[in-house]
């Protein structure tokens, strides 16, 4: 029992005993404010013709919003390293899914996806 507990403690980077972090309320309100501003920003940017950068701007804003939600609302900033590893693995697998699929499709040459 003790060995198991100390193992889990070590995996968590010693972040174990009674350290449920209470995030100050002003952090939640600040994050909420930034999320709203970014939403306004992404809507206004979508009406400007930025060429290929319309997609880039929209995705950069979306990823920023995601990171804010994950780090603060979901408390990951204050979570154990084990949690970080699990989340990191999830995004790594998502990257594999997207990149390897695209690596196939975008290298098929002209007329790809127009079968038969």
């Amino acid at each position, binding site marked *: 029992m003790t060995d198991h507990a100390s193992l889990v403690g070590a995996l968590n980077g010693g972040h174990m005993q009674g350290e449920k972090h209470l995030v100050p309320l002003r952090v939640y309100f600040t994050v*909420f404010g930034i999320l709203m501003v970014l939403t306004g920003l992404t809507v206004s940017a979508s009406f400007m013709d930025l060429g290929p950068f319309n997609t880039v701007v929209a995705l950069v804003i979306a990823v920023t919003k995601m990171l804010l939600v994950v780090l603060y609302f979901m408390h990951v900033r204050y979570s154990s390293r084990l949690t970080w590893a699990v989340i990191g693995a999830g995004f790594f697998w998502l990257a594999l899914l997207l990149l390897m699929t695209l690596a196939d499709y975008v290298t098929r040459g002209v007329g790809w996806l127009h079968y038969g």
Partner: protein
Amino acid sequence: MSGAHASQHPALQHHFDNLDQQFEASTLGMWLFLVTEILFFGGLFTAYLVYRIAYPEAFADASHHLNIVLGGTNTAVLIGSSLTMAMAVYAAQLGRRNTQVIFLVATMALGLVFLGIKAVEYSHKFEEHLVPGINFVFEGRDPIHSQLFFSLYFVMTSLHALHMIVGIGIMTVLTVMAWRGRFTKAYHTPVEVSGLYWHFVDIVWIFLFPLLYLIDRHGPVH
């Protein structure tokens, strides 16, 4: 860690040393589930990406038929519901029963507003003959593949809405538990874990909104 069983909390399961360890295991388990959810929605996002690269005109034309005002309002509503959810978790961490119930109910209410607006959007799509397979009439450069855009739109947003409905169900249970005073400073794991789920659903929408509604809007309408 030893001696944790000396004064055992009623919520402590026998296979954990103490409530902190139980909390850690529960949040980790929820994150593992959310990783499978990331890949579940990731498959749909991949399909969207592949077809958008293949048929850019069809997707741009179709995207112009989505309502940015309703979609944007829903984004704000959902971000607001994430804030009230975070507040509910905060109240649970402090063991404040009434505040917790108020914020859980507020989160559910905002979730219902989102679903209501989504229902209005869906009914507009039926009126405008933009429902693939059943009722699809489209004037554009590439109508067949615009239909593909709307298939992805309906599958992705309805799957997201289904997650919202499940979330509201979970929160109904939580509200009853909170009302009965089940959560304290020492034990509020279900509130925290349900919060993770709710914020995840918010994040899915944070990507759906720009990808479906926004990124093709700068071009001319065809």
